[in-house]
């Protein structure tokens, strides 16, 4: 089964799976499916990064990617 390296930021860290560094996915799965599988409320995800580039909820994963998810952050 393919894997991704998953990094959740700020309030999303509480949804981190045990093996976030090597998280199994089905090839072709979308970010939105991943987010739902992790039980993260979809509206909490503001920024999606795939291999250091901005992604979308509809972006699909094949395995081997680094995926970063950010909620909105605005403190100072």
């Amino acid at each position, binding site marked *: 089964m393919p894997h991704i390296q998953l990094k959740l*930021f*700020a309030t999303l860290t509480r949804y981190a799976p045990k093996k976030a560094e090597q998280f199994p996915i089905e090839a072709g799965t979308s970010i939105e499916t991943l987010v739902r599988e992790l039980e993260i409320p979809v509206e909490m995800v*503001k920024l999606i990064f795939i291999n250091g580039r*901005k992604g979308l909820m509809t972006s699909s994963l094949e395995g081997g990617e680094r995926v970063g998810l*950010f909620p*909105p*952050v*605005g403190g*100072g």
Partner: protein
Amino acid sequence: MMDGELTGSIKQAARPATFPDGTSYTSLSVTDTSRIGRTLGETSRAIEIAALEAGIVPERYARNLKTLSTHNQVTLLESTVAIVGLGGLGGGVVEMLARIGIGTLILIDGDQFEDSNLNRQFLSSHQGLATSKAEAARDRVHRINASVSTECRSEFFTARNAAELLKGTQIVVDCLDNLPARFDLEEAAKAEGIPMVSAAVAGNAGHITTIFPEDIGLRLIYGEPGSMAPKGAETALGTLVPAVTLLASLECSEVVKILLNQGKLLRNRLLAIDLADHTYEVMDLR
């Protein structure tokens, strides 16, 4: 006053000195800078600029050199930067920009210090509770570096006073704590045709970017303004001093690079950090 008199006084007071690497230079002390300024009716900044132009190093900036050149130091002393928000980010930014020698700082915040600021805001203190953040910033700058001029604006930044508050500044540093105000500031910076450096923090995490007037900017991070709550994850996680101070430091680094036209900026990119697991990654926003 004749230029020759100014340069003559500086040269008379200057002393030979040696950098830690053994190379020699001519140094002007802080005390002599102030004394010459008083005698000739000039600002400390004018004395420092004249010294640098004569190849003499104001000792206050000796450790800025040689990473910065004397010409770079003059550029910084002739620069104006506005800092909007004088809390966790802003307090660190003010401290650092005063020390590196930015000539004029416009200090904007209508708020007063409260107890919950003390965990992270360098300008806050037990004695200063319930006093103006902008005035505390001005006083701090003058205690650090008498060569830095300040414009102290104890008022909240809004879309209405934006143009007036940002007048004359070359860069604005976004140190605000809510998303609608950040979008207002971005719009004002674009209208003024100046770059904005913007950082945001929640808990141990945060991000920073640099936005030039022609760049898309905050929409790449947050989506359309009004599409989200005014505050982000910081309402749930608070704001910790190591993360906020690191991001303040990164904001200052971007400011100096913009002013000196050096290095690689974070335009259309986001540096995301999480101190909990040492994530430091530059992401492409386009």
